């Protein structure tokens, strides 16, 4: 399977969009494009399984290299392992549903979809590239579309949020950039190639300098406490699809980067800073959850709960055990699907009631059983109910974390576990107020339930959530070998 399709497809879609004449054409082109992406991602998944089943145990499959800047030893080097495949699947799911829920966008439709597709392009490129330069290129490609999406189609104090998001993310990528250049020179003669870098042992003191740069840099993308403050504003101001992409895909870029670049290339640094990561993420988990309890705006609720949930994956990374790392990846995927769905539903509610304030809403279940049910299910997923993806991921993280026997790690793990109660509190508060209870506003009695595209979008994401929740083994088998190589790097250090 040629990975270039993953880049070519969005490019083609974008080109087609530019040629499109009418809004209808734009909608259908982007819908078709996103569906094609989904199909491609699934094809990639099965091809990947086949290769593995055929006994191909190379760390990276389908890898290809084209020289880009020869003189600087920069190559366009792509390849995937289990983690990337999982992320690509996630991306394609979110893209399709994101396109679907925003079919009713009227303002500057063409530009809107163009940016969405550009974002997906950035994500795919990021997940498949094995050359840090290219990786960075795609990482930054994904920033500006977010800025425009929020700033143009957003709501509330959108300019402020958009600015904040763009600047903080760029700040993060600036740190990443310094880190990458550091790696480049640390590998005298200079290579940006991930695999090569992972082989040549980088001196410990260099790692000490570079790891924080890279980890914090990527951490900003994935809302590493206390650099998470772009998350609430950004998510709440963004249009529905924007929030979905933001939380579902772009926050995952950060997590993936932390894992794939920071931890994988700099195991020594990882070991030395692990405790700090753990402290920060445990704080984020609990503090995010408590902050969520106090929110009144549905989008803020989900944004803060994202801070808390992403904390799990960072915690998993910080724990550095094989299981915990696996859990971290599972959590990324699960949270991506879950939070995207949550934002989709919130958007549906908002489109109908024109408010997101929990206290103004009530008893919607009666008028919109479908939306209500989805809202409820995704809520349960976020509070980690078995049978839905959240449970699988969180439990894996917990089990992995518990493998570290000392008191510090124990306490961190228990702190993290506590959040499942707080989560239950705020989720039930939201569900109970918005969907259940008496109808607060007679106007709501006339509201309609979801229409076909919204239903389809929700069902697609829900399918993903259930697929992981009911039969986690397929994803687990996909990810475990990949995380094993990373865990192996870390083991090397201890030896």
């Amino acid at each position, binding site marked *: 399977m040629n990975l270039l399709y993953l880049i070519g497809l969005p490019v083609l879609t974008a080109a087609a969009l530019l040629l499109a004449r009418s809004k209808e054409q734009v909608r259908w082109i982007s819908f078709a494009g996103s569906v094609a992406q989904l199909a491609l991602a699934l094809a990639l998944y099965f091809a990947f399984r086949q290769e593995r089943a055929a006994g191909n145990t190379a760390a990276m499959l389908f890898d290809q290299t084209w020289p880009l800047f020869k003189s600087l030893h920069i190559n366009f080097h792509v390849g995937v392992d289990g983690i990337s495949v999982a992320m690509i699947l996630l991306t394609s799911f979110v893209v399709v549903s994101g396109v679907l829920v925003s079919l009713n966008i009227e303002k500057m439709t063409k530009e809107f979809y163009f940016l969405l597709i550009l974002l997906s392009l950035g994500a795919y490129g990021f997940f498949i590239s094995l050359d840090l330069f290219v990786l960075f290129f795609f990482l930054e*490609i994904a920033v500006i579309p977010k800025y425009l999406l929020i700033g143009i189609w957003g709501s509330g104090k959108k300019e402020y949020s958009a600015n904040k998001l763009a600047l903080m993310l760029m700040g993060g990528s600036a740190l990443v950039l310094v880190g990458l250049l550091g790696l480049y020179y640390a590998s005298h003669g200079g290579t940006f190639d991930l695999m090569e870098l992972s082989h040549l042992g980088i001196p410990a003191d260099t790692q000490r300098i570079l790891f924080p740069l890279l980890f914090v840099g990527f951490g900003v993308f994935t809302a590493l406490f206390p650099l998470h403050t772009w998350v609430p504003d950004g998510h709440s101001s963004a249009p529905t699809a924007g929030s979905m992409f933001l939380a579902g895909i772009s926050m995952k870029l950060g997590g993936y980067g932390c894992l794939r670049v920071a931890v994988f290339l700099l195991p020594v640094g990882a070991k030395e800073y692990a405790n700090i990561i753990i402290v920060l993420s445990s704080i984020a988990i609990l503090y995010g959850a408590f902050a969520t309890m106090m929110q009144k705006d549905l989008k803020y609720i989900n944004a803060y709960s994202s801070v808390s949930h992403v904390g799990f994956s960072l915690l998993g990374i910080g724990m550095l055990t094989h299981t915990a790392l696996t859990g971290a990846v599972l959590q990324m995927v699960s949270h991506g699907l879950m939070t995207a769905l949550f934002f989709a539903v919130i958007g549906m509610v908002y489109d109908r009631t024109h408010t997101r304030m929990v206290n103004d809403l009530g008893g919607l279940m009666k008028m919109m059983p479908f939306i209500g049910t989805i809202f409820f299910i995704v809520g349960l997923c976020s509070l980690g109910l078995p049978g839905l993806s959240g449970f699988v991921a969180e439990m894996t993280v917990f089990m992995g974390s518990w493998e570290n026997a000392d008191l510090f790690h124990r306490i961190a793990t228990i702190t993290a576990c506590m959040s499942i109660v707080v989560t239950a509190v705020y989720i039930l508060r939201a569900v109970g107020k918005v969907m259940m209870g008496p109808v607060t506003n007679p106007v709501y009695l006339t509201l309609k339930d979801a229409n076909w595209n919204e239903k389809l979008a929700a069902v697609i994401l829900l399918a993903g959530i259930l697929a992981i929740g009911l039969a986690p083994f397929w994803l687990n088998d996909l990810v475990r070998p990949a995380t094993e190589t990373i865990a192996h790097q870390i083991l090397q250090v201890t030896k």
Partner: protein
Amino acid sequence: MNDLWIIMKNELVVTTIIFLLLFIKIGKGLKNETLLPLIQFLLLANLLQGFFFNKEGLLFEGIFYSNTLIIVQKNILSLGVYLISLVCSDWLKKSPQLPEFFILMLSALLGMFFMISSGNLLMFYLSLELATIPVAAMANFDLHKKVSSEAAMKMILSSAFSSGILLFGISLLYGATGTLQFAEMSALLDGSPLQMLAFIFLFTAFAFKLSVVPFHLWTADVYEGSPVAVTAFLSVISKGAVAFILLTVLHKVFLPMMGIWYNLLMILSVITMITGNIFALRQQNIKRFLAFSSIAQVGFILVGMTNEGQLGISSVVYFILVYIFSNLAAFGVASAISSQTGKENIDDYKGMYRTNPFLSWILALALFSLAGIPPTAGFFGKLFLLTAGGAKGSFWYIGIAALNMIISLYYYLRVIRSVFMDKNDAPIEKISVGRSATLGLLLCGAGILAAGLFSWIFEYIRGILN
């Protein structure tokens, strides 16, 4: 003998064009509508000829020399001039003395060509003045505008002052080494205090032309006061030319004093980036805004220069190419707007996207490129500069540079925001962009995208160095 014709081909062609224009002027003169396309054609020819029949070599005992790198640099400059003649054509059409304008501009270009090729301080000084004085006259081209003449005055006076300093430096250098030839000089440099003083005097002249902080103060005023075309020329072409010659001077002549100029560049680049960005934050006038942004860009160029290796040279040359595309696109949009509506404030751009999507997208592309955001070429340019600058492994230095990229992003986004997001019930009316201007803007846009994504462009520049 006929070597001369080939080695000095570029200069000769430019001179010919100047003479042609003179004749046209002396003769009954043509209407702008016919003249401008003609000039554009001549400039295009000038650009194209740069790619053929080139020859390396020395003339007049090395006072004048040429090699592939220099040819490339000259081509880049000619490209810039050609693009200016396109993107600013809406303004140029209106100007009453079109031929003079180009005569002056081309003489400045000629000066730059000589400057790049000069192998001797005397030659350098002459060509520098040739490249400066006409521009001062050009700055005054809006004869009826007060600001225009003020700008010209400021420019001529401060450049005269700086060239005085330069000359003093040169004289000291002459006294210390007894030669004016670059080739002989570097052998005689031993870093004695006198030489250092001379070097610093000399350097300040470059710093002045590049508008490196603290020698930058004239920049903003002159940019704001002069016509857009002149500002574009100043900010792109003359900066580029000076950067090129500075590269040779530092990396060839003063290589023995590297220990000094490395630190010098480091300090100045940091100050320059920060100052430029800080000042750009609250500018209202788009030209003044671009002036400060260009100061910040120069800071980045200096970062690349700190690397004395091939990477240093290639990254700087490449960046200047990219910078020409990006900045000219921005100035092109600015001139299109100001020449039709006379509006030059960023706030006037509010809601512009609704009326002028094409200009908006070009502007956005340009600004993103200046901010160094992929997939534009600016991203690659900045990245290579930083890669070059980081070669000594000083992370804090690269870190500061990277942080400056964020500040700069902040104000570039300010423009983007007012163009795309801010509500405005009376936005700029639909602007009819002339054909040639459109062509120029498209070329710039294409350049912004292509120069980065087609990696062979950088590879080519890099290739000619070894």
